[in-house]
């Protein structure tokens, strides 16, 4: 007789739940998680909502066992989403993307959050246009430049899904953000001298920028995932003219949607995630890859992180597969590890892997919350994870579950 999995109780190994906050009924969170420290010694976790009506939420996690919501803001339009955000000092940058091209407001808003209860808008960077949906993701870590996946008023792509590209925005004067550089995959823009990149067979999402990571270890490099186009390492020593110096793609035969690239500088390694975007794991396998990038011009995949059998999770409800990982964000409030990778896998929860031997990654822990009340998918859908410098793990549900605060015990 088949034993059915339990989804009414949390399933844990080497993770301990410290607290859970449903964010006052708006517990659907996207992929923006960042922590600021206030002058009076509080620690505020900023969360980007996956979709309207909410924009972002600030949660006081000074005591991780008793998180308290301090602010929750609303979006001006129901067709907007503020999927991504990042805090640097007292400035919060929020990405705005619209459902359809041409809709507004689409771009990036900067807020002064020195008083976290009352975020004050400093500037709006407009990325709208007849062919743009705005900004999907942004990276803001040095206080000077925002690196983003965005459309622009002057950018028209051949294919619908190729509309967002890599843009570098100078925010040294935060009241006047302006673009200083951009790069797009050759062939994606109307007018390019080369033909558009080939489409993946079956479901193709497009060749567009997703995560755009830049680290102080190599300020002259951007690590950009380009959805169906694979991963690019860009030389940005001249921000006005980014140049690709390394590229790796796995699709076909895989199913595209490359999402995040996190280099582990000391080790010559890189962790690359694919995003699962289909329910019931129809796009399986969506994996997390370990790449040898000792020679950045020749990235070599050497392993994938071991995931539980697809049969066990595919039909629990919603998505199952890889998505976000903790990105060693170069903020003082972010945990850094080059031997542990934490990722979210929707219905398979948050999972941790030891990659000290990168040829044989080992799972060392997982936490799968119970199905949240009111879940439209019938299972937890953990979407993103962030670890603070204390080692406290924050993970969020894509739809209703809100915030889960965990302790690592491995």
């Amino acid at each position, binding site marked *: *007789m088949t*034993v*059915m*999995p*339990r*989804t009414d*109780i*949390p*399933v*844990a*190994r*080497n993770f301990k739940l410290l607290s859970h906050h449903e964010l006052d009924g708006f517990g659907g969170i996207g992929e923006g998680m960042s922590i600021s420290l206030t002058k009076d010694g509080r620690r505020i976790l900023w969360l980007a909502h996956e979709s309207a009506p909410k924009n972002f939420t600030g949660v006081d996690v000074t005591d991780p066992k008793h998180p308290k919501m301090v602010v929750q803001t609303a979006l001006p339009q129901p067709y907007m989403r503020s999927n991504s955000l990042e805090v640097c000092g007292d400035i919060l940058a929020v990405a705005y993307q619209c459902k359809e091209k041409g809709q507004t407001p689409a771009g990036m808003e900067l807020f002064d959050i020195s008083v976290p209860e009352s975020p004050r808008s400093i500037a709006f960077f407009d990325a709208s246009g007849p062919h743009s949906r705005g900004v999907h993701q942004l990276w803001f870590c040095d206080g000077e430049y925002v690196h983003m996946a965005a459309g622009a008023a002057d950018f028209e792509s051949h294919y619908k899904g190729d509309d967002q590209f890599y843009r570098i925005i100078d925010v040294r004067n935060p009241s006047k953000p302006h673009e200083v550089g951009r790069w797009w995959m050759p062939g994606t823009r109307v007018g390019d001298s080369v033909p558009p990149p080939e489409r993946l067979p079956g479901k193709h999402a497009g060749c567009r920028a997703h995560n755009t990571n830049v680290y102080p270890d190599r300020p002259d490099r951007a690590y950009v995932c380009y959805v169906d186009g694979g991963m690019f390492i860009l030389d940005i020593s001249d921000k006005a003219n980014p140049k690709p110096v390394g590229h790796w793609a796995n699709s076909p035969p895989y199913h595209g949607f490359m999402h995040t690239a996190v280099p582990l500088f*000391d*080790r*010559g*390694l890189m962790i690359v995630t694919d995003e699962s975007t289909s329910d019931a794991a129809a796009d399986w396998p969506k994996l997390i890859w370990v790449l*040898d990038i*000792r020679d950045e011009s020749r990235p070599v995949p050497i392993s994938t992180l071991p995931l*539980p*059998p697809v049969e*066990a999770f595919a039909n629990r409800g919603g998505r199952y597969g890889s998505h976000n990982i903790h990105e060693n964000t170069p903020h003082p409030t972010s945990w850094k590890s*080059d*031997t*542990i990778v934490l990722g979210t896998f929707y219905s398979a929860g948050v999972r941790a892997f*030891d990659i*000290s*031997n*990168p*040829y044989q990654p*080992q799972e*060392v*822990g*997982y936490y*799968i919350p119970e199905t949240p009340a009111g879940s439209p998918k019938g299972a937890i859908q953990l979407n993103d994870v962030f670890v603070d410098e204390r080692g406290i793990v924050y993970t969020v549900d894509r739809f209703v579950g809100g915030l889960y605060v965990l302790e690592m015990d*491995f």
Partner: protein
Amino acid sequence: MSSRWTSEALTDRLFPAARPAPFGRAQKRPRGARVPVIVVTGFLGAGKTTLVKRFLASPEGTGTAVIVNEFGEIGIDDALLRGATDKTVLLGNGCLCCASRSDLETTLQELLADARLGRVPSMARVLIETSGLADPLPILQSFVSDRGIGREMAVDLVLAVVDAVDGAAMLAVAPEARRQVALADRVVVSKRDLADTDAENAVRAAIAAINPQAEIVVAQGGEIPASAWAASELPRSDFLASGALHSEGVSSFVLPFPRPVAWPAFAQAIDALVALRGADILRMKGLVAVEGLAGPLVVQVVRHLVHPPVELTDWPDGDRAGRLVVIGRGLERDRVAAVFDALLAL
């Protein structure tokens, strides 16, 4: 640094982590991320089942998967059967119970798979209750490997139960009972309320004679403090044990290693002992400082099997001196010490 018994050394050179990891990522505790296992052993009628049942009913026992040799002993009557497998039983308080089949490893692997897939509740630990006549050594051997179950689970504690009434007599006549005590990290003296002080003293002396390092805990009304279920600790490096041979030649002693050792020489000494006297090594476990390594290294040997060493992030207690506990048959302290001295002197 040569890393014996592991395959990590070369990859660590290819992809060096910020903290060198020739033995893999440094761990907070000896078991690392593995599921902790408690082995409860003890002679027939010693009171193992009573202790285990009390533990399962306590808050500390929540999430314990229990493996029993004999179905029925644990009190399945009041259990709540879930999931319709032939062997996995969910007790009323959320504990799991498996009646062991012929192969312990198969049972454990299935339990792990069930836990991973959420078919059973989260598993905080596994408790294996051996039958009264069982030798716990083969059970310990199952976990001393970086393959199979040893990769997933680690024995945190071997708890032997000896009853105060006739435990001393039992230890005198039953080699199985002596073996159980010799292998234990902690020994529980049960049924104290039925015995007089002389009997308790006699059983304490009998236990100490077999296993002088083992901590002795006296059960009160079938219960022991929660701390007695915690992972075992190594004796202090200055622990003075006689190292004398007891009946059947079982000896137990502590070798101190006050200074960091050169790993290749230390590993050679372990290899030599295992090659020449492996059959006589019941357990060897210790913590040593290794030259060039930030944290101490956990060393574990059961008979011929050497577990891949585990580096800890820090010493578990204030005692920062290395020490190795040796429990063996016909092994004399001075001779074993001489092997290490000779190789470490090279």
